[in-house]
């Protein structure tokens, strides 16, 4: 670390990058998939087709849940918007149990498809890593903090960031090509990488950095949450007197007038009780910040009780950062940009991880028998970089192939997802490094490209039918899966060529000269 600023930053970049690399890759890969979580959600539930008016869907869900969940002390429904086709509903019961379901906006009742994790699985893995609360979330935040550090130190390391901005020389091969690729990917989406890491921590701030909250409120977290959403303050205790609930439509009309936008979320406290309260919150279409602005009504009389005041500057900043991460404001075109930026992040991390081994392989005393740490990184690189795509494809396969009546079906899908990553790591440990890359890439190419065929053959979404029906979201999802397969095919062929013994390249160079 004596070699000046750049050398110390290079050191920091290398090691923070390596420490968090595999985890951040997993978070980026699933986060990129999460951009299209509503499409994946709809793909896994072929019975959902109609796009309905959110207000009508909410009304149906409200009517359904009042009858279907009489023991609920609280229930909430996320309305559909231009992107969603199901409504996620949750409720908590008098006896302290919880439930959740995906409701069909056409009926307000749970979707008839076999239970599935759907797009929600990628979303939750993205920040909880399928680990118990709060450890998964803490690990995700820690990884994000390491990643942000790696990005900052990477920028300082790269002294010719502007003159090398467009430089990618794959023909040079080896370390140079990997370094060029890594730099280009890093420079391209630099603003994205920084803000997505920081805003990611902001979304989990109360778990990872609760000290702002405890500093101002001591142990009284409830007071913090009440102050964060002041309109919800003073929710009455359950009266124990049954009452007929007011119809929802007039409340939605009033809320949309007061909030200046469409309603996106419904929460009912003490449904069916004299003390019932109905809260309606805005959706986030076309607004950067993720507002919590909402209106609260008396559930029995339907009278408007409170509207949330505009947030203060700090809260507004927080909402803005939160909103930038969730990208709920984004229409289809902007979500494609998020998707490609996410892919470039995956490429950045993958190339950085590979670069660690490429730059050290030449210095190995005995390349046939590398030291343990080197071999570990090699194995884990394949395990993470190929394991995640295989696991994502594996989820789609599992969703189509698992029997509909299987107990705990979404959890089994999740276990298959994790098992695929584990299997890739084991496989990578058993095979020579280059073979492991090539073979897993071939498998990924097949696994992704075959999904639309598998789906059509098993009664799921059908590309031809989607085309005929003009269901462009499902067409695009199927084609994206095929394109990902194509990407892995290219990678497999490329890796296969690089894996070929040196004479071939020498011959090619000789022929070129």
């Amino acid at each position, binding site marked *: 670390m004596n*070699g000046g600023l750049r050398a110390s930053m290079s*050191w920091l970049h290398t090691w923070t990058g390596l420490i968090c690399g595999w985890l951040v890759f997993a978070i980026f890969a699933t986060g990129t998939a999460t951009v299209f979580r509503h499409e994946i959600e709809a793909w896994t539930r072929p019975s959902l087709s109609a796009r309905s008016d959110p207000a009508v869907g909410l009304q149906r869900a409200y009517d359904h849940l009042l009858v279907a969940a009489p023991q609920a002390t609280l229930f909430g429904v996320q309305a559909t918007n231009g992107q969603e086709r199901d409504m996620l509903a949750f409720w908590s019961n008098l006896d302290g149990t919880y439930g959740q379901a995906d409701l069909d906006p056409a009926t307000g009742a749970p979707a008839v498809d076999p239970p599935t994790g759907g797009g929600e699985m990628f979303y939750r893995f993205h920040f909880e890593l399928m680990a118990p609360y709060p450890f998964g979330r803490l690990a995700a935040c820690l990884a994000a903090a390491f990643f942000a550090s790696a*990005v900052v130190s990477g920028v300082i390391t790269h002294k010719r960031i502007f003159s090398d901005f467009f430089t990618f020389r794959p023909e040079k091969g080896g370390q140079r090509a990997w370094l060029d690729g890594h730099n280009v990917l890093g420079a391209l989406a630099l603003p994205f990488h920084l803000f997505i890491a*920081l805003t990611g921590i902001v979304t989990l*701030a109360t778990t990872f*950095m609760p*000290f702002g909250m405890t*500093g101002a409120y001591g142990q009284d977290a409830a007071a913090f949450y009440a102050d964060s959403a002041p309109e919800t303050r003073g929710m009455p205790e359950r009266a124990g007197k049954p009452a007929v609930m007011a119809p929802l439509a007039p409340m939605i009309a009033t809320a949309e007038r007061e909030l200046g936008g469409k309603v996106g979320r419904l929460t009912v406290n003490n449904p069916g009780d004299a003390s019932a309260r109905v809260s309606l919150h805005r959706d986030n279409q076309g607004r950067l910040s993720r507002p919590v602005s909402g209106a609260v009504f008396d559930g029995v009389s339907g009278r408007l009780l409170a509207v949330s005041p505009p947030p203060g*500057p700090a809260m507004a900043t927080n909402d803005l*950062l939160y909103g930038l991460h969730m990208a709920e404001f984004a229409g289809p075109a902007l979500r494609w940009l998020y998707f490609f930026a996410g892919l470039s992040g995956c490429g950045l991390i993958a190339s950085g991880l590979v670069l660690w081994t490429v730059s050290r392989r030449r210095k190995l005393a005995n390349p046939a028998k590398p030291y343990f740490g080197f071999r570990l990184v090699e194995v884990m690189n394949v395990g993470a970089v190929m394991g995640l795509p295989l696991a994502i494809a594996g989820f789609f396969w599992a969703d189509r192939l698992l029997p509909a009546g299987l107990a705990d079906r979404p959890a089994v899908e999740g276990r298959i997802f994790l098992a695929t990553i584990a299997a890739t790591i084991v496989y990578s440990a058993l095979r020579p490094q280059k073979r492991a890359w090539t073979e897993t890439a071939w498998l990924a190419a097949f696994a992704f490209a075959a999904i639309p065929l598998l789906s059509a053959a098993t009664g799921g979404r059908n590309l031809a039918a989607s085309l005929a029906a003009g269901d462009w979201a499902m067409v695009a999802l199927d084609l994206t899966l095929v394109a990902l397969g194509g990407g892995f095919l290219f990678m497999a062929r490329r890796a296969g060529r690089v894996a070929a013994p040196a004479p071939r390249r020498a011959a090619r160079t000789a022929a070129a000269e």
Partner: protein
Amino acid sequence: MAAASANAGVAYRLAVAWRAVLAVGANYGLCALAATALARLLPLAGVSRVEAAVAGTLVAIIAMPVLPVFVFAARSAWKPTLVMAAGAALLWTGAWLAGVPA
């Protein structure tokens, strides 16, 4: 990297380990203290409690990825150690004097 092979002695390894402790553990502690101190001190300046809590948290989150750069950029490990210790003492005192706002 060249430096790494040149003086990969115990002293060098200890120095790196110490900086890692500063960059991860002490960094988190310092940011937590900063969040606490801001959340407690800002209400004294008339900021609402919820605003102070959120402002403190945001400052801590933004500072966290930058501090390791400072820790590893310093020529000697003493400098970040002393600066962070002084910062922690200052923030601690401020937070302690202010107490949890009512």
